[in-house]
């Protein structure tokens, strides 16, 4: 049985369904992320798990027990708030000890566990400081310590890294991963930053307009998005309208208007003959899967087309080429600059050949 079970939960604000019939199940020990643009309902779900909102319909079960009648203070769930929400009139140690004090633990027990937690979040030397004397990263660690000190079943994190600068954010990401591994507490993490979600999570639920679009491991989500929204929201992707010519067991043949026929991998979940020919959708392929070569080369690839370089972005580690195809499509191709001493190979205006393997990309059934 899953640790947390969200069953057909809907929550409205007036006429607006912030969360629309969402079902999720989260396993014990998992680092689970709710990812989506602002207003997609991810924070609303988090607040329902914490108990600050109640679902209008549906159930939230923790260890199989419905939480509907349990107020926030009685749930074995802790939240790390976006603003950290530290108590400004208490020292770091007092902040961290607060949940233990509320649980009426014995004083020596409180002292011992507070000290352990201070060590764990590397703030032992700041125990007697007040929150306003700490840096953003340190405040963040106090919030984490306070949330973890009483060993909750579930830790909810509401965009906890949003307020940190890029470098510190990366440090905290690594720290979060090792902390989660160390304490073994289930994390439910909310973010709108797809790179953060990919880097941290065991599984990600991509949300859009109150609904869950796809739940998968990061690599599956990135490699095999199941909808235009997911494909577009996670990373960069080239998207072109496509029509099914033939969907067979081993491969799919697609027609791209104005370009011709391509071969694509089989569509997930579709058995032979399951997808009618003529079905419309989109073919999506990542820029790093698109090869770019001198015109006439790349012919060994099954899917290859001539094009013209219209734009290039030198990014240091990679160069991004925007290639204009015969049918007016712009395709993005990514070329790593890993060979030493080699800068841009192609110039704007060069005629090139682009192509991709027959097993790259996905067909998204519209």
């Amino acid at each position, binding site marked *: 049985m899953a640790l947390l079970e969200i069953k057909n939960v809907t929550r409205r604000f007036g006429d607006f369904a912030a969360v629309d019939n969402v079902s999720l199940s989260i396993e014990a020990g998992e680092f689970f992320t709710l990812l989506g643009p602002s207003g997609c309902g991810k924070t609303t779900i988090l607040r329902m798990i914490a108990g600050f909102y109640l679902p209008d319909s549906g159930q939230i079960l923790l260890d199989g027990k419905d939480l509907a009648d349990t107020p926030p*203070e009685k749930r074995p769930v802790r939240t790390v708030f976006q603003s950290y929400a530290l108590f400004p009139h208490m020292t770091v140690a007092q902040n961290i000890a607060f*949940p233990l004090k509320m649980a009426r633990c014995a004083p020596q027990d409180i002292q011992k566990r507070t000290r352990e937690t201070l060590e764990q979040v590397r703030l032992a030397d700041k125990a007697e400081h007040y929150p306003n004397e700490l840096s953003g990263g340190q405040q963040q660690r106090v919030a984490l310590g306070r949330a973890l000190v009483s060993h909750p079943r579930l830790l909810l994190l509401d965009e906890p890294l949003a307020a940190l600068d890029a470098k510190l954010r990366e440090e905290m990401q690594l720290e979060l991963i090792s902390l989660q591994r160390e304490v073994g507490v289930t994390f439910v993490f909310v973010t709108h930053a797809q790179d953060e979600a990919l880097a941290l999570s065991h599984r990600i639920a991509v949300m859009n307009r109150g609904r869950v679009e796809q739940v998968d491991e990061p690599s599956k989500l990135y490699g095999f998005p199941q909808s235009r929204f997911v494909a577009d929201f996670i990373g960069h992707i080239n998207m072109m309208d496509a029509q099914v010519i033939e969907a067979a067991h081993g491969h799919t043949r697609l027609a791209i208007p104005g370009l011709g026929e391509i071969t694509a991998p089989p569509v997930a979940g579709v058995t032979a003959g399951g997808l009618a020919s003529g079905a419309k959708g989109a073919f999506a392929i990542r820029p790093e899967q698109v090869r770019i070569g001198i015109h006439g080369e790349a012919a060994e690839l099954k899917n290859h087309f001539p094009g013209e370089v219209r734009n290039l972005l030198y990014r240091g580690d990679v160069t991004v080429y925007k290639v204009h195809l015969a049918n007016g499509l712009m395709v993005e191709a990514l070329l790593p600059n890993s060979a030493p001493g080699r800068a841009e190979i192609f110039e704007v205006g060069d005629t090139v050949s682009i192509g991709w393997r027959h097993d790259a990309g996905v067909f998204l059934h519209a």
Partner: protein
Amino acid sequence: MRKEAGRRGMGLWVAALAVYAFLYLPLLIVVIYSFNDSRLNAEWVGFTWHWYDVLLHDEDMLAAAGNSLLIALTSSLMTTILGTMAGIAMHRYRLKALTFMVMTPVAMPEILLGVSLLLFFIQILNLTLGMVSIILAHITFSIGFVAIVVRTSLAGMDESIFEAARDCGASPWRTFRHITFPLILPSVVAGGLMAFTLSIDDFVITFFTAGVGVSTLPLRIYSMIKIAVTPEVNAVSTLLMLLTLALIVLASRIAPSVLRFKT
């Protein structure tokens, strides 16, 4: 250009000085003449503590001062409790009607409040005018001041702090006791001090609700100057001024935002 700006600056300084002189010279004169060794407030004769001595032996005056202190203490204590509750409610429920009801007595002309309270006490409550009616009246007009100071301090706080407390296992009551109350305490104290100063120097509303038996310091001063402004009045005014000033300074030290709401 520079000279022009300088001259304009000069003009502003003069205007400001004139305004401050107009505001504070009368007060200064009251203070100075409380030390004047003469029965008349006409010319400076010499320095004396005499009028303070007279004051200390004026039974009526001491009784009035005692009443004033008792009224101010009781009413400001009650006001602090009720006003804090009102301020929290105004912040939490954000009902326009609630804010309107709490704040109206603050904006209401005192004379109107005085008359309506008088009618209410006598005709509806059938209350004999005296200490109780004065205290009730003072609570009525000062709740709004405490409420708005408390609400302002709550409005400046991160709402998620209170959610975090619940999240950490604190019931609503313990959230109030451990988080909300310590955080608003400076504003509560400052609001209470304000209520105290409002009470101790109130004249109009007290005048209407005091009845015949009880006198307060402002009422006593008023009845004395009906005859003549004696230096004794100067002396008691000086003391009252000092007390009020000290309390306001104290209140603004505790919660800097408090002065913004002093009328």
